């Protein structure tokens, strides 16, 4: 029996230009969906059906895409919940965190809670689905993986370690049908009195030496800032040079 898989997609945001784009993780959710369900995959977006970015998702080889039409600033979760409840779904795939809006990453959790399904976060791969159970690899830091088994249905959020989204083909995206479903939204009340501003750069915390004595304070004040200029070892012995490298590796905790 083919799997009934839904990938949820949102409008991404390019970190450099701030322009709308296919979101990196959501693209992976579609990629994973295509791997598991092929052409049976449903891709769902909540928002504006005329959003051009949807064509970029469609260009991955989708013949159609469903949009639950809703104004900006409306809460996506109740609409999605109603939509997903109607269908007999096995797996819902999302990104970990959206690139636009609040980026809270709560959508998969809230949906899972509302639907009463388990949620697996930061998935690197869904290896296989057999007998109503999926074998999932979670992405851990530094390329490590953890294997987890989970029964269908469930929600998975895709990590950047998951296989990257395939290229979007212009022609395919252009021809895809966008099926719009009107939905009654609920205004996101909490968000109403938030203020948004361009992110302020955060100063990197200096390595503060808590100065207990005057001499230490003086040293801290006059110490060269941790500058860019690197250290160059030329005349030391080979042994010393290797030791210097090794010490740095230890300091950075890359060797244990």
């Amino acid at each position, binding site marked *: 029996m083919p799997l009934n898989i839904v990938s949820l997609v949102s409008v*991404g945001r390019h*970190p450099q230009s701030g322009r709308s784009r296919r979101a990196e993780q959501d693209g992976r959710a579609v990629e994973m969906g295509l791997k598991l369900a092929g052409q049976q995959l449903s891709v769902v977006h909540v928002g504006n059906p005329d959003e051009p970015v949807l064509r970029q998702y469609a260009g991955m080889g989708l013949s159609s895409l469903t949009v639950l039409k809703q104004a900006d600033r409306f809460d996506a979760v109740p609409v999605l919940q109603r939509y997903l409840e109607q269908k007999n779904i096995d797996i819902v795939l999302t990104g970990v965190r959206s690139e636009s809006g609040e980026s809270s990453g709560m959508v998969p959790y809230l949906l899972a809670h509302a639907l009463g399904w388990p949620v697996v976060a930061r998935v690197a791969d869904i290896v296989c689905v057999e007998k109503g159970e999926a074998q999932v690899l979670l992405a851990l830091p530094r390329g490590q*993986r953890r294997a987890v088994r989970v029964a269908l249905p469930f929600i998975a959020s895709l990590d950047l370690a998951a296989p990257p989204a395939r290229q979007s083909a212009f022609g395919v995206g252009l021809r895809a049908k966008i099926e719009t479903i009107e939905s009654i939204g609920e205004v996101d009340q909490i968000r109403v009195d938030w203020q*948004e501003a361009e992110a302020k750069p955060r100063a990197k915390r200096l390595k503060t030496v808590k100065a207990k004595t005057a001499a230490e304070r003086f040293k801290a004040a006059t110490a060269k800032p941790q500058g860019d200029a690197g250290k160059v070892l030329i005349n030391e012995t080979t042994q010393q040079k*290797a030791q210097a490298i090794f010490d740095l590796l230890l300091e950075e905790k890359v060797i244990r």
Partner: protein
Amino acid sequence: MNDFSSVAVSPVGVVRRDPRKEWMARNRLHPRHHEVISEGVGGEMGANGLMRRNPRQIGFIGPNGIKRIDRLKGNAVQTPNKRQSVVPEVVLPWHVVATADFYIFVVPDMVGGRLSGHDKDILGLAHRLQKEIAGQGAVVAVCFGEVKETQFELAGVDRLVHFAGAEFEGFAAEAKAAALAAMDERWAPKHWLFPDSIHGGTDLGSRLAAELGERPATQAWQVDLEKTVARGAGGSLDISRATPRILFLLEECAYPIDETRHQVLSLEMPEVQRPAPRLLDQGLVAVDPNEIPLAEAEFILSAGNGIHNWAQFHQTAKALGATEGASRVAVDDGFMPRSRQVGASGTWVTARVYIAVGISGAIQHLQGIAQCDKIIAINTDAGCDMVKRANLAVIDDSDAILSALMMLANEKLVEPGAVQGNTNKEDSDAA
């Protein structure tokens, strides 16, 4: 139960100077001179923070393994009690919360069983919030599974809750979330603070927030009692909002605690009702460093045209546990597979440490390592661009340095301390 909550509150946090002892220490001919000298040297800190001394030990073992009685000590260092390396913790005053009016719960990541820098920042923040609220509050750390941390009292943990047991080991997000929900019901904390991290904090926090039906502030970095500034839209926005009860915090959201000691008392844990787990942990998957996709690798040893002994290069990478990378020339010449090429037409890597061995630093190569934290160059040419870019450069033959590095790595392997570290893969990611 655990060991950490058993620390008795000691009313005296400070060890006082004893002028008489100092005089005895300076006077080598005093009959009690040895006794005084060995105090602090051979002594150890007791559970109550006071120094215990071993009257049988005189002198100490020097770095060369020879036992020495440091007779100069009395003169060089004024008193054994002032020896910086041993004593400073002792002088920190206690922060005592006798009875708490409210609680702030912190759920640290405890990477490798220890508090990470991120965890400590959040404990620091918890104390800042606690001070802003009327009444006496206690900061509670909630830990799961195996705990190796020994310094809770210095990190600002007033109370400690430790859920031990097999069901909390490994990947147990559901069990942990259920435990947190039970704690919430029992203690109704003023705040829940989680590290917003890939080490589990975000996942656990999100589960709790969904369970409690509360909207958390995520990627928060400026927090006080009223207002929270949190990143949004992929880190491009600062969202200012009223501070909610549940917060996921970025690193460096506050300074860690460093001037007080805390009681680390235990807190009553309610009975946790848990449904059967739906996510079944199958354990960590062993990943060969060389199988790690280059883009994800955090430690890369990269080879260029200046490598002449390829067998040695591979061995060194193995000994160091590094993922292998290469310049385009090394790939073109067939020494390395294409998937290992770093640079404009290869992979853009984000390693924390990148060692470039015999790579000149062509612009296309440098493009690929722009996001690396620390770059180490090994090159015979001190003038090449890679050396200019590197944080540490050694000017030497690649062959010689690699073999010296390999020796160091192998030596480290036989040291017992190192082996212990290697047993737990999840260990020691504090950054």
